[in-house]
């Protein structure tokens, strides 16, 4: 009885493992899964039935239902021939929905992944076909970064590819707009990490258009603008995530500063685009030299956005003014994640953020890594956290913080019950600050992660804090077990992804 209980090992989960695992292993799995997939379509070779044990009884019977080796592959069935024909003529005469499910499956297994999208896009919904298409085009595929749908992945990556290689003025915009009706239902996220500028670049001084409005830039330098997303995004009804980087990859020795230019016109059109896109939940604009003015333009367009949850403007040139705008956004939207890492935020900006944060009820995560808010900003934030009941993750690494902030934070730790992760690495907290933090930790039961690396804290206190965190984790686990994984998704999202 026990054995029969242990035996059921469903094969379905093994397939999902493939996509979850890391890229290095994924390739292997993908390669190994190739034949696995194609196996059902190929009929097993006809094996001559050897003399069975019950040969005497079987000699009279021509068809034995229990014979697993038996196959009718000698003569191709009419259905097989029809299916072959359908497959052959699929681009001209796509017949799929009229077929029986098993025949549909066969047809899909035999279809070439090179078929024109106009035929397949709205007709085929079978994941395995799109999986084959993806595998055929790209060696590495992370399907779970595309919502677990191979079809979505195919169209998203296809569109991304087109956008990446779009050269304004030379490439026909119809190339992308023609695709729009086909992919509008399947594109949920767009991650474009390069925008090519027009090819013939007139050498014009870059400093002239800095202070002017967008209209001037339009007239003077129309050629330096990148692809305008507004038509495309307006067409994509399901778009939820927009991840843009205005730069050029692999420019090599052709490097010019002009290549890395996020113009005002780009900025205005992007602002209009994201304002019009009501389904957008995540907006990322990183490594694009977004300065205060551009940030203000963008953020102004995002005010009172109905769906936006995450804003990522990391690795830009945003200063205090831009941060002030972001702080205003916090109180005018339902933003859950705000990432301003590696910008030029200083104490005033931090203070404004702290002011907004004090009464905010939606923000869960705030990242101010590699800024320079210093103690003044840190103290302001710590004060804000005393009243805030929402924030769970706070990253203040590399912000020139020191003991005064630590003392205030220790107070916060003893009071706050929502914070689960704090990062104070790369600061100058000092031995006393460490001790104070340890004190604060002693009263805390919710904090799960507290990064104090390279922050001049004593080893002893760091260790003790680590012990306290361990205890907290245990209790959190117990709570999670009892409350059926209530906290686990937050904890999983909390830490920074190391690969980024």
């Amino acid at each position, binding site marked *: 009885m*026990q054995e029969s209980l242990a035996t059921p090992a469903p094969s379905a989960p093994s397939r999902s493992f493939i996509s979850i695992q890391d890229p*290095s292993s994924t390739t292997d799995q993908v390669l190994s899964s190739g034949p696995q997939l194609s196996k059902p379509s190929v009929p097993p070779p006809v094996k001559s039935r050897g003399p069975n044990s*019950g040969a005497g*009884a*079987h000699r009279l*019977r021509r068809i034995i239902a229990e014979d697993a080796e038996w196959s009718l592959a000698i003569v191709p069935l009419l259905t097989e021939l029809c299916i072959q024909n359908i497959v052959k003529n699929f681009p001209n005469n796509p017949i799929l929905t009229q077929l029986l499910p098993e025949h549909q499956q066969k047809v899909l297994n035999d279809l070439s992944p090179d078929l024109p999208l106009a035929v397949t896009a709205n007709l085929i919904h079978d994941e395995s076909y799109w999986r084959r298409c993806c595998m055929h085009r790209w060696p590495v595929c992370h399907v779970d970064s595309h919502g677990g749908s191979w079809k979505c992945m195919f169209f998203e990556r296809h569109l991304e590819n087109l956008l990446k290689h779009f050269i304004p003025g030379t490439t026909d915009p119809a190339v992308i707009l023609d695709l729009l009706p086909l992919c509008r239902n399947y594109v949920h996220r767009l991650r474009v990490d390069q925008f090519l500028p027009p090819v013939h670049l007139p050498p014009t001084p870059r400093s002239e258009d800095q202070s002017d409005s967008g209209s001037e830039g339009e007239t003077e330098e129309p050629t330096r603008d990148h692809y305008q997303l507004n038509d495309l995004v307006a067409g994509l009804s399901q778009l939820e995530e927009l991840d843009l980087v205005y730069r050029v990859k692999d420019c090599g020795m052709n490097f010019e500063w002009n290549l890395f230019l996020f113009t005002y016109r780009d900025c205005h059109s992007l602002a209009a685009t994201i304002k019009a896109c009501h389904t957008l939940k995540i907006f990322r604009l990183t490594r694009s030299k977004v300065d205060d003015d551009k940030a203000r333009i963008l953020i102004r367009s995002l005010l009172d956005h109905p769906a936006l949850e995450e804003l990522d403007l990391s690795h830009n040139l945003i200063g205090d003014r831009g941060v002030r705008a972001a702080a205003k956004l916090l109180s005018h939207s339902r933003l859950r994640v705000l990432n301003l890492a590696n910008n030029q935020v200083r104490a005033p900006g931090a203070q404004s953020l702290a002011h907004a944060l004090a009464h905010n009820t939606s923000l869960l995560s705030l990242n101010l890594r590699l800024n*320079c808010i210093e103690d003044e900003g840190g103290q302001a934030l710590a004060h804000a956290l005393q009243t805030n009941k929402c924030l769970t993750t706070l990253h203040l*690494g*590399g912000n020139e913080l020191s003991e005064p902030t630590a003392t205030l934070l220790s107070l916060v730790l003893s009071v706050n019950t929502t914070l689960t992760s704090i990062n104070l690495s790369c600061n100058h907290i000092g031995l006393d600050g460490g001790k104070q933090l340890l004190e604060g930790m002693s009263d805390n039961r919710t904090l799960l992660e507290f990064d104090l690396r390279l922050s001049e804290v004593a080893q002893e206190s760091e260790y003790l804090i680590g012990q306290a965190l361990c205890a907290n984790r245990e209790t959190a686990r117990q709570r999670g077990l009892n409350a059926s994984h209530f906290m686990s998704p937050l904890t999983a999202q909390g830490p920074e992804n190391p*690969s980024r």
Partner: protein
Amino acid sequence: MNPPGSLGDLEELEGEHLSASILRPSVHSDNPQERIQARRLRIAARLEARRREALGDYLDGKKESEEDQSKSYKQKEESRLKLAKLLLCGTELVTNIQVAADIRETRRRVEEEEIKRQRLEKLENEVKTSQDKFDEISAKWEEGKQKIIPQELWEMLNTQQVHCAGLIEDKNKLINELQQELKTKDDQYVKDLKKQSDNICLLLDRMEEQVKNVMKTFRQELHHIEKAFEVERQELLTSNKKKWERALQAHNTKELEYLMNRIKKVEDYEKQLNKQRIWDCEEYSLIKIKLEQDVQVLEQQLQQMKATYLLNQEKLEYNYQVLKKRDEESTVIKSQQKRKINRHTGNYQTSLHDILNNLRSKYAKQVKQFQEENQSLTSDYKHLVMQFKEVQKAMRHFALADDEKFQEIWLMNEEEVKDLIKRGFDVDRIIHTHHLGLPWTAPDFWFLKNVGPLSQQQQKSASQILEELLMQTGNGILKPEPACWSFGLFALLIVLGLLRGRAQCIGLCFIEEEGAEETASDPASYLDLPKQISAKTTRKILMLLCDESGFLIESKLLSLLLPLEKSECYLLRLDAIFSALGIESEDDLYKLVNFFLKYRAHHHSPSSQERMSLTPALEPAEQPDFEGREEESLVEREPEEKEAPASPRLIHPNAVLKILEAFVMGLKKPRDSRPPVKLRKEVRDNSKDSEYWQALATVIPPATQNLWDALYTALEKYHLILTQRAKLLVENNALEQQNTELQLLLKQYLASKINSELQVPPTEVLRIPVKSKQT
């Protein structure tokens, strides 16, 4: 963990397995039904297994949660902690690089800021000093403007130039410094890039290592956990098994105990049952005997009752019979008494009445019977009459047909015979004229002229006779023509026939005719007298009739008759009268005439009455011999006829009507009885036929035949001689011809040349015999 439940489950399971393995039909069997059954069972088993699996899972989970401190749990906790630590450490290890990079960056930024600040300060200082210098220089320009002396100016300009150069040099220095700095920065940048790539490499390495580590440890831990689970399961299994066995043993012993108890109980019950059975049997037999006795007693009683019942029945029956008889007797007596009373009271009236009634009924019955008989007989009679008539019809038809045929055959034979006779006569004539040289006269026999069968002449219609009669009488010439005499004879005969009977009359008529023909030599003298007389009288009578019964003729006809001759007028008148009276045939006419004569005789001469009575008396005597009586009757009649002419005038014209009336009345009667008479007429006498045919056969007399025979022999001889002569003639002719031919040949030979060449010419030789012959 509840042993009874699981035990029950197990038991059930095992039981099922056992039963399944025993009952399960093989999938490989040859019977398709069995195979189907097997597959069904298999499917059912699978479903059952799945269900049990779910149940087992549930049990397992329960077990786990309950068994907190088990080995596996410990192992799990241990590995979990270990893994958590590993993960934490790993992420720390990986993120360390980032953190390091971050702090380097912050430091660099701090340094950079510092350097920037210094540079700015330096630049500001430089700007200040250079400004001072510039101001100095520019101030000196003012000074220079005031200078008038060229040397001074030149000097000053030189110093200015030196200052400016100094200023520029400072600036250049600064620029150089900055450029130097930039260069070093560039180098720094390259270095940083390198470092960064190193860092990334390191990061990747660490990540990979981390992944490997984690996977390895995860696997290890999984393995450990599995092992722990396995061990635990093993333990659990063994313990459960032990428990199960123990329970089974306990169960077995208990069962055995129960079994023993049961056996004992069964034995006890059996004994009790036996006892009870015996007791019951005894009781049963006792009751049975008792009841049987009761039954016997009751049956005896029943028999007795039956006997008494029978006795009573017979008694009652007897009584009933006696009473019945008495009742009958009493009724008889009662009726007798009644009769007596009736007799006394009604004076036998009733008794007579009874008899009368009886008779009446009999009578009615008989009448009825006879009526029925009569009816049947009449119907039979009718039927027979019908049949008879039909037969008569058929007979008539056949008679007619026969007659026709007979006539045809007769004619044919006659023709043949006449042919033969004619040939015979021809031959005879030839013989007589040619051979004998005698004159030949054709023999004239009566029968040679006869054509058709020997029968009566066809009846002539009344009008024809009348015509003839009138013509004869009108002309007043008595011609001895056969028609006339035969007519007269016929008239007479018919009168006779009327008196006697048709058949005889006709037979007589034929015979008479034949006889008359035989005695053809004197027919006229014999028949003239009666005929003339009768013709006259009839004529007279008819004339009278014609005059008196003019009313019978239509007035139109009368007017038409006026211009005609007297005789013709009479004829037509009579014709009309006869048609009115219904007289059609000869007979009727003669009957009429006769009637007139009779009437006259009856009224005017009482003697005629006597004669009339005499003639019937004569009739029977006449019948046997025809010819003898005929003469007599004719003779007898003649005076009568002779009398008649004398007395026609005695018939008063007024009486004619009365006579006619009587005649018409009388005519109707004979007409009714006429058809049978007519039939009899057909029977003809064939006695003369043989004679006729015989006569025909012997038309050539034996004398001539003898003559022919003699002639034949003589002629034959003559013929013989003639033939001989003819032969001889032919012979002679042949010889003559031969002779001439031979002569010709001889001449030829003699004339040929060869004769001359020969020594002895044949001519010579020939000549010699010829000569000799000639000589």
